[in-house]
């Protein structure tokens, strides 16, 4: 059995890469992809802790399944917003979407 800390390190690396992408990328679609990476890292963490700490209790896997649901809803609404913004501003670069900037 691969020890727990290896799974946690892989999930931490995925989360850090996702954070860098969210903060540094310029197009909204790329930012959304990096958010998916971060959510996936969280799910890996949840399932790893479930397997090593409470494998007889389904709460860890059930929680991970709910994170899947929220990720799917977030992707659908986020991409719909990106399409709506692209239709009006002809751009998905987040620097150009500054209508609410003071």
């Amino acid at each position: 059995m691969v020890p727990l800390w290896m799974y946690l390190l892989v999930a931490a690396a995925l989360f850090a890469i996702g954070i860098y992408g969210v903060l540094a990328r310029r197009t909204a679609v790329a930012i959304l992809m990096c958010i998916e990476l971060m959510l996936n890292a969280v799910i890996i963490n949840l399932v790893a802790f479930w397997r090593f700490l409470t494998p007889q209790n389904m709460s860890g896997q059930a929680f991970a399944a709910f994170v899947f649901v929220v990720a799917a809803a977030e992707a659908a609404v986020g991409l719909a917003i990106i399409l709506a913004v692209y239709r009006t501003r002809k751009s998905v670069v987040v620097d150009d979407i500054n209508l609410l900037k003071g």
Partner: protein
Amino acid sequence: MLEINLPLIVFAIFAVLAIGGALGVVGSRNLIHGALYLIVSLFGGAGLFVMLSAPFLAAVQVLVYIGAIAILIIFAVMLTRGMAQTKEVVNRQWWLSAILALVLLAVIGIAVVMPVWGPNGSNVVNLQVAETTAGVAELGIALVDGNQYVLPFEIASLLLTAAMIGAIVVARDD
């Protein structure tokens, strides 16, 4: 120290797929390539789920994440045409973001590794892990059991319906 055995090798393969795909997502100039790298990364995650004896979540990962979300992202890239290739991939604060991400990784890494390998660490590489786990049938029962997760399950269904209607309303061309 760690002995090299078959599970460790398989774990390393899936971990390299997951992290390498994630690096491809962040670094690729073309958004379509980024979406394909995202599929590679999510596939690595599905392999990790199999190694954690959660086969249902691995199947959901392949079906929902790779089959639905990644394809949805590819559709969005195609619908926002002219945006797949941008001259500058990252914004002006990319170095600050990189420092922040590295600091976060270092903090989490130290917090994860110190209890095992640190001076006061238990030095236990393998803590006692149960051989058997609850299976897919228990997960199915837990999701619809009145004493467990039936209310979050129904709310999740409601959230999905609301998100679907909201996505159609927001993206509709009128």
